[in-house]
């Protein structure tokens, strides 16, 4: 028969897979808690995936140093083993690897991935199919709620609250620095459109009108037309949403074309250390969003932040949310006394948790909200600006480029 050798190769592969799948089923005594997570380790989101993995690993290591979680059902403390599967920054693959973790690795519970609606929603959908608990963050709340998931929960910020921040800051400016011609520049994506809709509504509420309101294509390498428009309109503040490469390019072209604004606030693309590394002092005064700050007055926050700096040589305004997510899960498992998905989820909904993000409480739909933060870049660090009551740093208005 033609290609006999090829069929042998194929059969070998199938046998390997079957062996791997059944191998896990032969574990006799329960030695550890298997937590699976799908993260982008390759592909365009790999940068985020690597750091998220680090955050989860920190949480797991800190827990295992204490011996693990006391699970009443097994009558002893069990350590946690993290199973990470690469979803290749692709939603189809995300669903596939979650299936694989449930069926081959036989994980007990699942931690969420990244990049809503992609990494997270396919995971949630798969978790529903197999009734495994998927404990996640990083997903916009409205689309998640729409699906009425019964086997996952969400820990994230409310878009309305996050988008309101710049207006609150503007309202606090003295009359001499009043913002009269703001610009709204959002990337043309799902997240971008969600943000822009809310920004517009809230602008009206606070009495601001955008002089320039335009979406741009992701990965567009040349924003000069936008910069030209903004300059000719006399824009004095910019709200920008996009990836870090795009934001970096935009700021550079702002400087090249000498577009001066008093206030520039970025979402998604301005919070990473790379933003500062790429722009240097040109990034001074620019604001970014965030989930967290190492300056939060909560136990463990500062130490976690310092660990991050040591490892990555830059500061993070997001890592606390992921670490906190794990803290919630560990406590919930202990309170549930079992690894059963339904009971663990119940425990998540029923209790209040103390984390590096502060106190966390879920509502009956499975959503727990944290406050989105704002920080201003100053000498290489993001200085916490909002929530106002957690910091003393006041927003500094940006002088023109040639006066810096």
């Amino acid at each position: 028969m033609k290609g006999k050798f090829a069929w042998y190769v194929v059969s070998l592969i199938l046998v390997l897979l079957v062996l791997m799948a059944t191998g896990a089923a032969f574990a006799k005594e329960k030695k550890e808690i298997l937590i699976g997570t799908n993260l982008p380790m390759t592909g365009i989101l790999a940068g985020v995936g690597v750091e998220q993995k680090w955050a989860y690993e920190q949480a797991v290591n800190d827990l295992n140093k204490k011996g693990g979680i006391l699970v009443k059902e097994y009558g002893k403390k069990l350590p946690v083993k993290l199973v990470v599967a690469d979803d290749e920054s692709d939603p189809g693959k995300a669903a596939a690897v979650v299936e694989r973790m449930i069926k081959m690795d036989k994980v007990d519970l699942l931690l969420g991935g990244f990049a809503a609606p992609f990494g997270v929603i396919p995971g949630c959908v798969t978790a529903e199919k197999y009734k495994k608990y998927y404990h996640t963050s990083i997903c916009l709340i409205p689309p998640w709620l729409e699906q009425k998931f019964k086997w996952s929960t969400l820990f994230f910020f409310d878009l309305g609250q996050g988008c309101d921040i710049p207006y609150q800051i503007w309202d606090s400016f003295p009359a001499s620095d009043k913002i009269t011609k703001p610009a709204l520049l959002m990337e043309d994506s799902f997240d971008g459109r969600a943000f822009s809709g809310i920004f517009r509504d809230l602008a009206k509420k606070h009495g601001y009108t955008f002089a320039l309101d335009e979406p741009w294509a992701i990965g567009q390498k040349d924003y000069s037309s936008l910069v030209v428009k903004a300059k000719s309109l006399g824009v004095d503040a910019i709200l920008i949403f996009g990836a870090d490469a795009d934001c970096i390019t935009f700021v550079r072209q702002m400087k090249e074309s000498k577009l001066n604004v008093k206030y520039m606030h970025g979402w998604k693309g301005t919070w990473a250390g790379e933003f500062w590394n790429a722009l240097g002092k040109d990034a001074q005064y620019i604001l970014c969003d965030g989930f967290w700050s190492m300056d939060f007055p909560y136990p463990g926050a500062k130490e976690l932040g310092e660990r991050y700096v040591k490892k990555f040589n830059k500061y993070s305004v997001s890592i606390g949310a992921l670490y906190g997510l794990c803290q919630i899960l560990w406590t919930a498992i202990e309170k549930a006394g079992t690894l059963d998905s339904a009971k663990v989820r119940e425990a998540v909904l029923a209790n209040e948790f103390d984390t590096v993000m502060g106190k966390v409480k879920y509502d009956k739909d499975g959503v727990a909200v944290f406050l989105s933060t704002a920080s201003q870049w100053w000498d290489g660090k993001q200085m916490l600006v909002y929530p106002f009551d957690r910091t003393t740093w006041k927003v500094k208005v940006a002088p023109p480029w040639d006066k810096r």
Partner: protein
Amino acid sequence: MSDFLSFHTLSQILINGLLFGTMYGIAAIGVSLIFGTMQIIFIAQGSLIILAAYISFWLFLLLFIDPFLSILIIVPIFMLLGGGLYQVLFRKVAYAGKNPSLLIAFGFMIMLENLISLLWTPNTRAIKTSYTAYGIEMLGLQVSFTRLVAFVLAMLATVVVTFFLKRTLMGKAVRAASEDLGAATMIGIGTHWVNSITFSIGIGLAGLAGVATAMTFPFDPYFGFIFSLKALIAVAFGGIGSVWGALVGGILLGVIESLGFFFLSGVWADGISYVVFLLVLMLKPEGLFSGFKRIA
């Protein structure tokens, strides 16, 4: 929107498009030559450009070598690399039909992307020199210094390559092989040798494009593929095998995109490039500038 459409604004858009398009152009010349001589769609060109950008980044960060100077290091290395790549990857399958070479280019590309991602982390990188965000004023328009430099480099490179192909013996051999392989072989021109040279030029240009990219904007490991796609479009505009055609094709693409981003919103502008691409393929597959001879 028509409030913005002054002559000044329009010229600004055109200049930006032109300067930006030269990046596509440099990438496209290499692809065009390789496509023309060997019928290989070398989709890994973009990723090699990104590799050059990362090397330039490293040289700058660790050894404080200015990107301009790094050209002198990177381009020769890449030329050697090009010859080597041909010998290792493509020599065997150069005449075995187009499918194996397309897949080899693809396989090589995903290896390269991942390798870059592991060596330099997947995060976005950028070079910051004293002249990075520097804009000069020319004729009342704001021109980005680094993009202007990229333009000049692209012009120089095109002139050099054209000179090589027209005036040197090796260059003429390359042209001969591309125009009539059988005849060239008969008179003793070693085709694998010629192909190596072509690859050498193509990858050397990728090295140049990489440094220009590193100087101009931030990059990440996975940007290369899109770059390759745009290079292909530029090649279609300019005609396969034509060096000046590829450069002008790239510039044209840059201008179309620049105008598109200004007049249309976001994603439609992206689509415009592909629509024009299809139209050119259908109506003038030999390229818009078929006045240029092949390989010249």
